[in-house]
Every structure is written in C-alpha cells, then in structure tokens.
C-alpha cells in the first residue's frame, strides 16, 4: 500500500486520510463502525488545560451543503485526555495520533503542548489557533501575525515533536499568516479551520446558534480551503494538512494537487460515519483512473503542470 503513503515531518502515514479535530470524538467512538487502524492518523478534539463544558445550546445549525458549529471547545482537560481518553484509543488504534492543542493564553498553549509532547502515542502537535486570546481583548490568535509567530516560537522551544499550526481562514492574507508560523518554527501547517457564518431562523428572525456567529464547515467551504492550500504551498515549502469540505477521493486528489501532503476529513464524518473508510478504499481506484502511480507524485502538481 506504499502507493498511498505520505510523510509528515518524519512521520510516515499509510495513507493521507485523517479525521479532523472535533468531528471524530476521541477516536474510539468510531471503532464500532469499522477497524479504525486503516486510517492514516486521527486528529483528536482540541484540548485545553482544564475541563470545559462549552457553549450553550443550540450549538449547531445547518445550511446548504454545510453546517455551523459553536461547540465551544468542550473537552475534559489535558490530564483527563492523557489518562483516560488516550488509553481507550490505544486499544483500538495502534498508530501515532495528532493531538490538538488549544488555549486562551500563550501560556496555556505551551502548557498543553508540553503535556502532549511527553506522550508516546502522539506523533504531531496540531496547534488550533482559532481561539480568542483573553489577554488581547479576545482577538483570535490566528488573526494576529505577532501572536502566530510568538505562540509558535514558544511551543517550539519547549517541545520536541513536529508542530503543525492550524490556521484560520478568517484573515485577509493567509500567506502572511503561514509565513509567520514558518518563521516561528512551525514544522507544518493545517489549512484551515472553519470559516465564520450565521444562520437565521426565518420564523423568529433570530440567529439559530447560541453564539449567533459560528464556525462554518462542510462541502460548501471546499473551494476556499483549496485556494488557501494552493496559495500557501506556492509561497512556502513546509508540509500542509488540508482541511475543509473533503468528502471523497476526488477531493483528496484535488487537495494533494494543490500542494497538501495529507487531508483531514471533518463534517462529513458526522453525516456518514464510514466516509474515511470509503475514501481509503476509493483512492486506489481513482489513482488507476487518472494514471497516478504514487500519491506522493501529485503533491503540488497544480503549480507546474502545463
């Protein structure tokens, strides 16, 4: 199966399919659907220093070809994740996982990242920068060039595993943000988190989700995510994990062609719990159809094919 394998900063994935953070629980929930060992890796729910309940309900809404969520980083806290969730996952998934680090201050990011850095099961630290920085009036970390650079640098100083910065698409210049992450020492990038959107109840006139504005994801956002991967990979050469609207093997081939090395499947897991398995099974057939010998050959090809 090495035709499907890809490398992320020294970590070899059997295939580029990774369930995205927040859409796959802590992984083991899916082992009753299928043998999850077929996955390339798994990105866990973003984890903070202490337990969080998250936002009030409704936390979710729907739109054409997509959805909105405002879960509010509900998670049991980093110690509980390491002591309770990871051992449960270890029983059903033997590969390295991607730990998603979140926080509301630079110190919290470093704290959580250091804890995960010490865990053998963790292969990559994915830093979810789409959180509000309480010290800077709640401006999200991902929307400020200074904090992207400094949080990245601080985490790199204290950890040894590859650090991937998950950027937000809600910025005016994604390439500038990506360069800041790279200059801060990021080993790779995850592009991107959710867009922002809202849905209004036509009967009452009120926004549906409790936070009014929420994270917009699903097939509807794919062209935006694809553009971000395309633009960033053109300018800088660190590995990119793509995220945004991925639903089938064609989407994966598209994102790899745009310059991604691996792909995270998010919202589609909620609608079709088998989607990652189906993509992994479909990929060889699609490669055959398009005459692709090895997935590694197509990474970034959109930048040079005639």
């Amino acid at each position, binding site marked *: 199966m090495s035709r499907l394998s890809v490398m992320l900063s020294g970590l070899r994935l059997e295939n580029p399919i990774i369930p995205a953070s*927040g*859409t*796959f*629980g802590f992984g083991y*929930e*899916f082992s*009753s659907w299928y043998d999850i060992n077929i996955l390339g890796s798994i990105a866990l*729910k973003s984890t903070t220093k202490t337990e969080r*309940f*998250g936002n009030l*309900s*409704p*936390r*979710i*809404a*729907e*739109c*054409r*070809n*997509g*959805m909105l*969520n405002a*879960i509010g980083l*509900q998670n049991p806290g980093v110690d509980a994740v390491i002591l309770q969730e990871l051992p449960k996952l270890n029983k059903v998934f033997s590969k390295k996982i991607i730990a998603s680090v979140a926080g509301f201050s630079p110190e919290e990011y470093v704290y959580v990242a250091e804890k995960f850095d010490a865990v053998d099961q963790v292969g990559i630290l994915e830093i979810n920068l789409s959180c509000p920085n309480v010290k800077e009036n709640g401006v999200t970390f991902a929307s400020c060039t200074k904090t992207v650079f400094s949080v990245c640098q601080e985490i790199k100083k204290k950890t040894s595993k590859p650090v991937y910065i998950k950027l937000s698409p809600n910025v005016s210049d994604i390439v500038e943000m990506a360069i800041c992450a790279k200059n801060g020492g990021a080993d790779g990038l995850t592009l991107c988190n959710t867009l922002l959107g809202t849905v209004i109840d036509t009967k009452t006139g009120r926004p549906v989700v409790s936070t009014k504005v929420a994270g917009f994801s*699903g*097939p509807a956002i794919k062209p935006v995510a694809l553009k971000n991967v395309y633009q960033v990979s053109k300018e800088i050469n660190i590995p990119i994990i793509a995220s945004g609207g991925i639903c089938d093997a064609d989407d994966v081939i598209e994102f790899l062609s745009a310059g991604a090395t691996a792909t995270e499947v998010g*919202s589609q*897991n*909620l*609608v*079709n*719990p*088998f989607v990652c398995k189906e993509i992994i099974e479909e990929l060889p057939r699609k490669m055959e159809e398009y005459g692709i010998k090895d997935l590694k050959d197509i990474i970034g090809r959109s930048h040079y094919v005639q």
Partner: protein
Amino acid sequence: MRERCLCSVKYNEPIAKDIFKLVIETSVNLQQIPGQFINIKIDNFYLRRPFSICDCLEKSIIIVYKVVGRGTKRLSETTRAQQLDIICGLGNGFDMDALSDKSEVVLIGGGMGAAPLYFLAKSLKESGVSFETVLGFTDSKQAFFLDEFSRFSAIHVSSLDGKIGTKGLVTDSLRDISYNYYFSCGPLPMLKSVHRFKAAPGQLLLEERMGCGFGACMSCSFKTINKSKRICVDGPVIYSSEVDFSE
C-alpha cells in the same frame, strides 16, 4: 444494534394535522429498544434528522413525525418505494429493568413525545407490566394513536383547546393518578413540570439539535447534576434523579 442501512419506504401518509406516519423496511433484522432513535438522511439536506422509533417489527421501523421545517416537509414528500439512508439503533433507550413488582407506572407523553412511548407501551405490555398512559396535545387536531394506546392500558387524554379529553395540561391529568414511577417524553417545558410535579423516580427522553447522533461532535451536550452527557449516546433517556432543570 447500531447500523447504517438503506431502507425502502412502505408507507408515508398523514395521520393527523401535519403529522405523518412513515414505515420503512430493510433487508436485515432490526432489533431496536424503545426510546432509541434513527437518523434519516433527507435529500438536499446536509445533516441527518433524528426521530424516535415509534414501533419496530422484525424488518420494519415506524416513525411518526410532525412537519415543522424544511427537512420534515421534504420527508413528507417521500413516496412509496423510494430509498432512505438511515442510521438506526442510536441512543440508550428506556431502562425497563428499573421497574420492580411494586412499581405503579405511568407513561406521560406530550405532542410528538407520544411517538417513542408507543413502542415502550407495547414492550411493557408484552413483558406483563401494567401501567397507565397520560397523553396531552396542544392542538387536538394533532392527536394520534389514541386507539392504539388504549389497547395497552387505560389512557387519560388532555388537550389545551379542550376538544378532546379534558381541557388542560398533562399535569392536570396526573393529579388523579397514583404512580411511583414514570416514563416521560415531550416538549422541554412539559418535562420540567412533570419533573417538578412529583419527586417520583422516572426516566425522561430529551431532545437536542444533533450533528452526528453517535457521539462524535459534542453538539448535543446536556448538563446533568454531576456531569455533562451527550444526549445522543448517554441519552436520549436520562433518569429523573440525574436531571438538573434549575438553570
């Protein structure tokens, strides 16, 4: 049994105002528990829609649904022989083992909450448990399954418009009934007043907007007295002793 399957529509017709009965059939045996739900993929809608199992025969599932929005409108237009992609066997279901010989049981349903109670009533009857049923409807034109329920137990019906049964709320009917265990399902304000009405042990079936229905997304979190639960996997049935309606 939790499973994703393609089912064919056998029946999908109105049985009351804006209320439809849908019968779907699969090729496999579907063992479901009362209180569990299915998640239906409706054409042109991204997220699935959850519906309680109203009855389950060997290879068919019946749900009763109300047209409230675009998804249920579309579902009501589904015709016989069309295929539906469903995930079944979701949620914990009612715990019938919680009952003892001394239990005086009442089922309390409001509006669409009657749907899951029908499957429960049938199962309790089959296990020889005797009980009474209290059903309340805001609009009497939306009452359904009254004859069906009365095959299993005595029923007490109330409606807000007073056109069927007694005029009033389900809690008005509860005054005349002696019970020490209840199963309840209905709109949240009704569940709150049932919970407040008598400090008896019981089980409540809760609803929340769902992303997945199987524990992956945390859309459906609900705070119980000591921890947060996901309604889709740790519920939708919650013991009355765990419920915290104070907020």
